[in-house]
């Protein structure tokens, strides 16, 4: 069974984040080895900064880089990767969300995967087949670290997103909305061709129904297990989340796990989860989307 650790940062600062990350990694018995280079994939979904709970806090990534350099025997190359999306351009997101400054301060490289060399790979997930581009930076990395956020998503089969969905963001093809009609399969397919070694969730501020400071750091080597944990924290049933079930079926990880550190329930009790009204609105959205009216009603 996979290990998932839960720790809480005491404060909202670099040192507290670093300490919580150190504890979380210790609890899953992870230690950094002899890798030549490391890539880190934060979640930069748009030009919303960390205070909204939608994107990874650059201080969290900085704390992780500091820890890696402290624990690795020699200086290694660190890259922060992201790709352009339907509504976001990396070159602006890196600047606006504080990653350009981080890269300067810590001497790390920022890579836009949409501009990277890539190989095209055919991959099947569920009953769908995809031709996906795999960036060379990801393929050649010694250690791949996924630093996602926990977020709700009002889409059939994808009610909550965390580690697996963040890897979907490595797909260099910018118009990712084209996958939305088969998003669960696309998420799983991307994870099959781009496997990450470590997931470290930035739950310092979670978006939930509104942003809330949770101070959570969650670590695991299993992306499916960490997504199951994320779903439970957000009071969603992981059995009903299509992409998690499909990822498990496709052998990407386990749906059961051993909890380490603070109890999961501690964070679930504090998560800004959906109330009845929001759940009803979510269902109304789903009906509108199924009827193909989202665009006409300006909801998309």
């Amino acid at each position: 069974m996979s290990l998932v650790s839960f720790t809480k940062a005491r404060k909202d600062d670099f040192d507290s984040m670093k300490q919580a990350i150190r504890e979380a990694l210790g609890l899953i018995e992870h230690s950094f080895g002899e890798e030549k280079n490391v890539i880190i994939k934060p979640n930069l979904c748009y030009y919303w900064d960390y205070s909204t709970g939608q994107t990874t806090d650059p201080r969290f990534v900085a704390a992780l880089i500091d820890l890696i350099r402290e624990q690795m025997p020699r200086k290694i190359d660190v890259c922060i990767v992201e790709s352009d999306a339907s509504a976001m351009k990396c070159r602006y997101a890196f600047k606006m969300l504080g990653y350009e400054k981080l890269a300067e301060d810590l001497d790390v490289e920022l890579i836009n995967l949409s501009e990277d060399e890539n190989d095209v790979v055919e991959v099947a997930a569920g009953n769908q087949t995809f031709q996906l581009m795999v960036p060379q930076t990801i393929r050649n990395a010694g250690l791949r670290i996924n630093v996602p956020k926990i977020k709700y998503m009002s889409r059939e089969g994808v009610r909550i997103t965390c580690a697996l969905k963040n890897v979907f963001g490595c797909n260099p093809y910018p118009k990712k909305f084209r996958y939305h009609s088969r998003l669960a399969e696309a998420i799983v397919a991307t994870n099959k061709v781009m496997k990450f070694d470590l997931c470290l969730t930035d739950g310092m501020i979670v978006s939930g129904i509104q942003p809330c400071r949770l101070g959570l750091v969650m670590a695991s080597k299993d992306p499916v297990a960490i997504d199951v944990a994320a779903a439970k924290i957000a009071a969603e049933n992981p059995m009903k989340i299509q992409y998690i079930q499909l990822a498990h079926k496709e052998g990407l990880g386990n749906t059961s796990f051993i909890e380490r550190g603070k109890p999961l329930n501690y964070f679930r009790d504090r998560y800004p989860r959906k109330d009845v009204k929001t759940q009803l609105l979510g269902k109304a959205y789903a009906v509108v989307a199924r009827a193909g009216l989202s665009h006409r009603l300006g909801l998309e």
Partner: protein
Amino acid sequence: MTSRIMEVYKLKKVGLGVIGLGYVGKIHLKHGMKLGNTNLVAVSDLSKRALAAARNAGVKRTFTNYEHLLKDADVDAVIIALPTHLHLKCATDAAEAKKHIFLEKPIARNIVEAEEIVSVTQRNAVKLMVGYPLRFNSAFRSLKENMRNRTLGDIEIAHGDYVSSGPFLHRAESHTPVPVPEWWFNKQLTGGGALVDLGVHIVNLFRWYFGEITSIKSCLGYRFNMDLEDHAICLARFESGTKAVITVGWFSQDYRLEVQLLGTVRNITASHAPPSGLLNVARARVEMLTKGMSRFHQAHLAELQYFANCIIKDLAPSPSGEDGLKDLEAISLAYRNSVELKM
């Protein structure tokens, strides 16, 4: 000239052309098709998708090059809803084609271009109105009425807040982000950030309330590390003696457009907010589909109706090109007089 006025008087409906079908251009398109005193003749945009949508909405003449639209004899006036750096060229071409102009704010990216726009419209004897929908918003008009009636006493202090996500549009209800056109990130093309984008609205409104600005200072903020400011606070003083605090920002997922007048007799607040929550958004969209407008954009409808009336009745529109120029002069002064707050 007399024959021209006679010619204009004969107009029952103003033939309109919309140049630029971005966010606000689409609103004008819908309103232009709905109003009784306008006849939406043609549209122009580089996006074939936007033109196809306009054709589906009933517009017969669509162009990818606005110069073709300007040659259309049925077009009496154009609405220019293009990025700011294209205002001068397009307004000059339109004026020389003898088309009246409704120009979206800010009038231009700098004072030199704004002066040129005002001058070219005067030389060609065409009307120029700058789009400031707050002047046609019932809540903000009622403040003016209160001031006229002196029910508030002397207004000692005014607050104007306009904080939103700016060009980083998104729909919080669906978490679906909207792409941001590249020009928004380029100071050379926009002429500035949140201060010029949103500040001109409040400056124009307050000039209408209190007269000309006698002094103005700003403090600019750069939360998003861009070359242009994403928020600003201005302190201004007006001819009437009123002091104003103007707060603008692009940093918030929430929307706040509020004016507060603190008078010697009464204090009063007026605000304008978009529909929020799924049901209200859906209701607004249904209104848009069925009636061609939503309550949120009522002021845009009123300003277009007024502009068309100005053409039919040969009146000078207000806010005029000169107003747009004065607003930009005030904003430019605020940029020049920006101060840094020390930590």
